[in-house]
């Protein structure tokens, strides 16, 4: 029978844990969520020869076993729960050779839990440059463990690491220092109250309650209520514990680690002098943002056009090849365009994550947080929120996925909730056509085009709405989260291509298979509603042919009138009619109503839908524009698209959550329907009220 080993990868952030995980598992990995919470769960498998299968769980990076965030809590919940199916047979603690002192703190804690632990000292390729020497045998003896000196960059030491994992049952489970000596008297009491339990485990359960909150999934329920010390005394004990651990580590490293500072070369301080500079730091950061923006806005247009036309021809081909009928229509007009609507996002997602993973890998992202913290903090956002907010100007989908990098859940949630306010590229066609229609083509001060200024105003409005609602949400949302701020500033490194590629592939897959299902389902529903209808709908051809029989129209024109008639009498058309009373105070008629309902699939569909209703064959902007300009308001007379209704429509699109794909991705990222529904209702309500006020005021 094949041997099966559960391995947990544990380590401080930035020690190269992900790289080690990628080395061990390659693309054999699965990214999901821990049940009920939004912490990413990464697991993978790896075969050691034929006889041994290893399941590897990559735990969130943590500095110690005292949790202060949901991510760190996951680590403790697992390590304290022997009954968990993922409970490790052996823990591989990844450490960075340049930060051994800090990294060992966590290692000593894990040793104290009695879990067999291997110390994997990573980044060994940097030892020469930094003039570091290690006495491994002595260190192994002091720490009561086995050490693998590895480099995930150079792929060194992994065979030995695998060998250690395979023979994990030969590892010592003795603790390397005795935590109870920080207060013998307290630990005595603890021992008497729970005679059969591991003391350090008990201590962790109790302090965990003080630090973060009760553990949910734990065999030692009830221990946390063992309160014989005040909270501040317990905290003092924790401080003592940390000091004691550092003392032990300092003594150990004094004998085993040697750094020849005279020989060490330092790239960090030179780069930091520019990259975190008060002026240059910002100039460079905005340059990078501009580049990211350019990539998702401009460069991805080429693959997107290609995807668009490929799916269009595929749909055409299907229609011509399969026997005509409802089933063919469903495939050609419902499913294929629906799939196209998912694939179309891939270039933008891939580009954004290419940049983000490079920024993370190089260590630059921490500098961004450092530079932006002061500004973003005021709005309840993180320094890292800048990237999603700017990316949102191209498309909210990749932007919301990018919030994964924000560790603090409250800041992350706020960023997710406000990002859809920023003006994404799908709003652009809607804005352009309406602006061209209702804003006079004149110049302000002789140079600035008024239409251009209006467009710019729309962008500012979107960004302002995002920032302002972030500020409100920060006040409203009651979410406990880390209130203080510590960011590690890692060394600058060249990114590992393998890590970058895996990130891009994983993110793309996550979108296609996670949010994609929802997008496909909704687009099929919308298609059915637009392509079928009750009553007259089915007689469309006959009715139109009779109606226009005397007018000698070409076949094509008849066809367009039929399409228009069908849309009006389809289910969506009925909805458009039904909501007319609700949208009339905003200055719209039922046709715009239909366009609004169907553009829920994606905002840019607005223009196409109007083209169908007005029976203009092409989606050429000029043609539709002229047709729209000729449209008469059925109640008031005069042009339907005048200044008042135009502004009202612009504002409606600025605020409304008109994008099912965004809702799908928010559902995926927040792991519940609560937040996307909340977004949908609140944003639609704001859009309605603002558009109503604008129309009533301007008309």
């Amino acid at each position: 029978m094949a041997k099966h080993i559960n391995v947990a990868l544990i380590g401080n952030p930035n020690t190269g844990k992900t790289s080690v995980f990628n080395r061990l598992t390659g693309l054999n990995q699965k990214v999901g969520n821990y049940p009920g919470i939004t912490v990413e769960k990464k697991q993978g498998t790896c075969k050691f020869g034929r006889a041994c299968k290893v399941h590897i769980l990559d735990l969130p990076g943590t500095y110690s076993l005292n949790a202060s965030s949901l991510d760190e809590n996951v680590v403790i919940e697992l390590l304290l729960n022997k009954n968990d199916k993922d409970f490790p047979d052996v823990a591989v603690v990844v450490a960075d050779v340049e930060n051994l002192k800090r990294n060992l703190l966590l290692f000593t804690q894990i040793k104290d839990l009695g879990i067999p632990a291997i110390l994997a000292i990573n980044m060994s390729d940097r030892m020469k440059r930094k003039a570091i020497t290690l006495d491994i045998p002595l260190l192994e003896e002091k720490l009561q463990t086995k050490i693998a000196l590895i480099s995930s960059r150079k792929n060194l030491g992994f065979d030995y690491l695998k060998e250690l994992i395979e023979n994990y049952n030969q590892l010592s489970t003795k603790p390397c220092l005795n935590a109870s000596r920080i207060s013998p008297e307290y630990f005595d009491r603890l021992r008497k109250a729970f005679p059969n339990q591991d003391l350090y485990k008990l201590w962790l359960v109790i302090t965990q309650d003080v630090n973060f909150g009760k553990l949910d999934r734990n065999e030692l329920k009830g221990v946390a209520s063992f309160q014989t010390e005040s909270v501040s005394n317990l905290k003092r004990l924790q401080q003592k514990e940390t000091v004691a651990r550092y003392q032990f580590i300092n003594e150990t490293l004094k004998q085993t680690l040697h750094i020849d500072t005279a020989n060490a070369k330092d790239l960090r301080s030179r780069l930091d002098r520019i990259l975190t500079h008060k002026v240059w730091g910002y100039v460079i950061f905005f340059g990078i943002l501009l580049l990211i923006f350019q990539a998702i806005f401009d460069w991805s247009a080429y693959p997107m056009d290609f995807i668009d036309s490929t799916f269009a021809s595929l749909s055409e081909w299907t229609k011509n090849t399969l026997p005509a009928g409802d089933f063919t229509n469903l495939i050609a007009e419902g499913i294929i365009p629906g799939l196209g609507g998912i694939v179309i996002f891939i270039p933008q997602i891939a580009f954004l994550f290419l940049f983000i993973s490079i920024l993370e890998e190089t260590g630059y992202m921490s500098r961004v947080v450092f530079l932006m913290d002061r500004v973003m903090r005021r709005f309840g956002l993180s320094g890292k929120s800048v990237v999603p907010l700017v990316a949102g100007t191209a498309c909210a989908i990749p932007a919301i996925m990018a919030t994964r990098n924000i560790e603090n859940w409250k800041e992350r949630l706020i960023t997710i909730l406000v990002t859809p306010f920023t003006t994404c590229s799908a709003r652009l066609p809607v804005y352009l056509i309406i602006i061209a229609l209702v804003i006079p083509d004149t110049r302000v001060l002789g140079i600035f085009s008024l239409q251009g200024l209006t467009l710019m105003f729309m962008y500012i409005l979107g960004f302002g709405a995002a920032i302002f609602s972030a500020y409100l949400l920060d006040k409203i949302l009651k979410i406990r989260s880390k209130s203080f701020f510590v960011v590690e500033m890692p060394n600058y490194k060249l990114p590992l291509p393998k890590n970058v590629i895996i990130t891009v592939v994983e993110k793309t897959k996550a979108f296609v298979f996670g949010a994609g299902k929802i997008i496909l389902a909704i687009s099929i529903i919308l298609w059915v509603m637009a392509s079928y209808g009750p009553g007259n709908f089915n007689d469309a051809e006959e009715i139109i042919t009779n109606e226009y029989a005397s007018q000698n129209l070409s076949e094509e024109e008849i066809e367009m009138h039929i399409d228009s008639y069908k849309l009006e009498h389809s289910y969506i058309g009925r909805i458009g009619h039904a909501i007319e009373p609700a949208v009339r105070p905003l200055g719209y008629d039922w046709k715009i109503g239909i366009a609004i309902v169907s553009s829920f699939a994606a905002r840019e569909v607005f223009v196409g839908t109007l083209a169908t209703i007005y029976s203009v064959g092409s989606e050429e902007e000029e043609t539709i524009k002229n047709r729209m300009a000729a449209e008469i308001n059925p109640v008031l007379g005069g042009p339907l698209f005048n200044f008042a209704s135009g502004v009202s429509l612009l504002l409606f699109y600025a605020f409304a959550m008109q994008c099912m794909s965004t809702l799908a991705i928010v559902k995926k990222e927040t792991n519940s329907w609560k937040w996307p529904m909340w977004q949908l209702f609140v944003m639609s309500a704001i859009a309605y009220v603002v558009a109503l006020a604008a129309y009533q005021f301007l008309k």
Partner: protein
Amino acid sequence: MVITIASLKKGQRGIIKEFSIDVVPLKLLEMGCLPGNEVSLVQMAPFNDPLYLNINGSHLAIRKETASKIEIELI
């Protein structure tokens, strides 16, 4: 006047004095900010907040508010 990490100037160094756990988050201790350790200021963001520090070889950024609670002795 009390000298804290927040009063450091760029390039200056100090030794962290004893402090009470009630004002300094445990996380910071775990990252190496312990009494007796050496701290120096690497860089300040605009408006002098946050501060980019080197504490005993660990490079961290913390907010001025936290920094002003940690007393030091200049060296």
